[in-house]
């Protein structure tokens, strides 16, 4: 069984890789297996984790005993029925006549997502990032504990340059995203600087993505030449 397993895995791996040469029957077979298996995998996992694990065991908690034999079964959570009801409304789509009901659970999901994102992004990606950008450019003003005097303490040049770069980058980048003003004159020039920063960001992202993809390929090569063929020491 172990030999069969590793061969199946290797043949499927090669099947996907063969797409690099051209679209072919081996690839199509692997692809079809993949589409079917992955759809089935999620179908099963979501059923057990969500429908069974969350809903069923939540409303019909299995009996449990602690070490002393006392019943410690949890109280059923009736609120979960609402979720099941929404889920069933969702399936109404299968009946064309009352398919419109499925908009209710949809509205529920869209609404909760909007509310949650509004707050999460506002606090973490805006407030916190604004706070992160506000920093002393050139140095700190710590209070000397012995004399009680406030003294200026300059930052190293490296940090000053870094701080200025961050400030300019964030500022000009945001200017680029202004929609209600034409990019002209000083405003346009600032937006241009903003684009430069965005491009550096994309370049760095690109570099990191290359790194990531290559790592994953290395992982497959390790499988083919190591686990399967045993050629890697």
């Amino acid at each position, binding site marked *: 069984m172990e030999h069969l397993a590793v061969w199946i895995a290797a043949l499927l791996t090669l099947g996907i890789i063969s797409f690099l040469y051209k679209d072919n029957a081996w690839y199509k077979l692997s692809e079809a297996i993949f589409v079917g298996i992955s759809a089935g995998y999620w179908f099963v996992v979501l059923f057990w984790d969500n429908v069974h694990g969350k809903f069923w065991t939540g409303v019909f908690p299995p009996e449990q005993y602690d070490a002393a034999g006392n019943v410690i079964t949890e109280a059923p959570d009736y609120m979960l029925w609402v979720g099941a009801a929404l889920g069933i409304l969702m399936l109404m789509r299968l009946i064309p006549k009352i398919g419109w009901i499925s908009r209710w659970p949809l509205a529920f999901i869209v609404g909760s997502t909007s509310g949650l994102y509004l707050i999460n992004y506002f606090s973490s990606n805006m407030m916190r990032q604004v706070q992160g950008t506000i920093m002393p450019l050139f140095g700190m003003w710590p209070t000397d504990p012995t004399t009680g005097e406030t003294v*200026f303490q300059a930052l190293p040049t490296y940090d000053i340059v870094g701080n200025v770069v961050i400030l300019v980058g964030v500022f000009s980048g945001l200017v680029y995203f202004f929609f209600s*003003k034409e990019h002209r004159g000083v405003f346009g020039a600032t937006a241009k600087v903003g684009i430069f920063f965005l491009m550096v960001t994309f370049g760095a992202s690109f570099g990191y993505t290359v790194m990531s993809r290559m790592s994953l390929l290395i992982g497959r090569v390790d499988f083919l030449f190591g686990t399967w063929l045993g050629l890697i020491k």
Partner: protein
Amino acid sequence: MKFDLGTARQLRILLLLLAMALATVVSTGAVSAQGEPVDRVDPDVTGEPMIDSVAMLPADSIPDEAYPAPPTDIAVKDTPNDDGGSIDISWSLSIDDYEGGKVDRYVIMRAPAVNGQPGEFVEIGDVTGRANKVRDGNATEGEAFFYKVVAVNREIRDGVLMWEATTESEAAGPVASSAQWFDWRRLNVFVGVILLCAFILYFINQAQKGKDLFIRKIAGLEAVDEAVGRATEMGKSIFYIPGTQDMNNVQTIAGVTILGRVAELAATYDTWLEVPVSRSLVMVTAKEIVKEAYSKVGRPDSFHEDQVHYLTDDQFGYAAGIDGMVVREKPATIFFMGAFYAESLILAETGNSIGAIQIAGTAMPSQLPFFVAACDYTLIGEELFAASAYLSREPKLLGSLKGQDIGKAVVLVSIIVGVILESLGIWEFSKLFRVID
């Protein structure tokens, strides 16, 4: 445009909820505004020598000088800004508690209040020496408790616990935990959200009154017409990929909203639009949207149920599926609008290799470089969210863009002011933006 019944009702309910929240905040005004951070409670022993066995000597053989002085000034109070069930305990360290002193750890004891007097004390947890506060997270809401803090000195020789000398503090209490109706630590976020929403709503209102709002050209969106037109000329199809995430991602919502506009164009030109999706919920929504678009331009019969179809939830299963379809059907135009992960590259490169016009939009920074490189036009981040407003030219939506810009202006001004103040040694301003207490 006027608010129809549905929206007006919703607004009213929103206002009602807000008013309710504010009213409860005011009525429970007793809530303390300063939620001082409390150190983590560690009910388990940490950072101390391992005890392999216990050889406890009788209490009278413990030298008298081994007993530490008790901790003093035990203060107990309901944990502020929480939903109840939690009490903060703090104290002044025992005078024998210093590095190398006589206190190894503090044991926290709790007793329920019986007729205003402490009942039987039981141990509920402990902290290492030098700690002066803990949080009891198991105090049933509404029940009153008394607390004691016990200083513990221990002798451990070669992993054998020889003796334990303990001194109890006085009992403090009674105190009961309660839940609060407003988290004062989040007041700044509250004000910020209200302000931003106010800007947006103000400009939506202005736009509805007919005020002309200028919106600059966004290249990627100007090209949508051209891209659909080209597909029509070539007699080929259009693919629309609304990302690979579910409806619980706002980018997907933005993506399917733009799909509505594209579908209207496709229906007008009578060009085949195909929408393969990777989430069942997205399929449901996208079907609705495309159907709606077709009937809006008066071609409900041209709509086919199978125009929008599900492939698989799996990211690469989906990418592989699309790949095959693109190579075989060779669409003239491909749209990528929504949240993408690694599959963006496969999709965009394959589309590029068959020479399709590609317009992409995503707020996933890691995927933007590939779209920028392999697509003809790319909407970057915020531009994706602006797209549906821009394409529809609906005043309400354009107004919200203007409101966003005001938000951006506030951010820019705050950053500049903040940096200047901070460079001069004035810290208070940046604290307005803190999110952790």
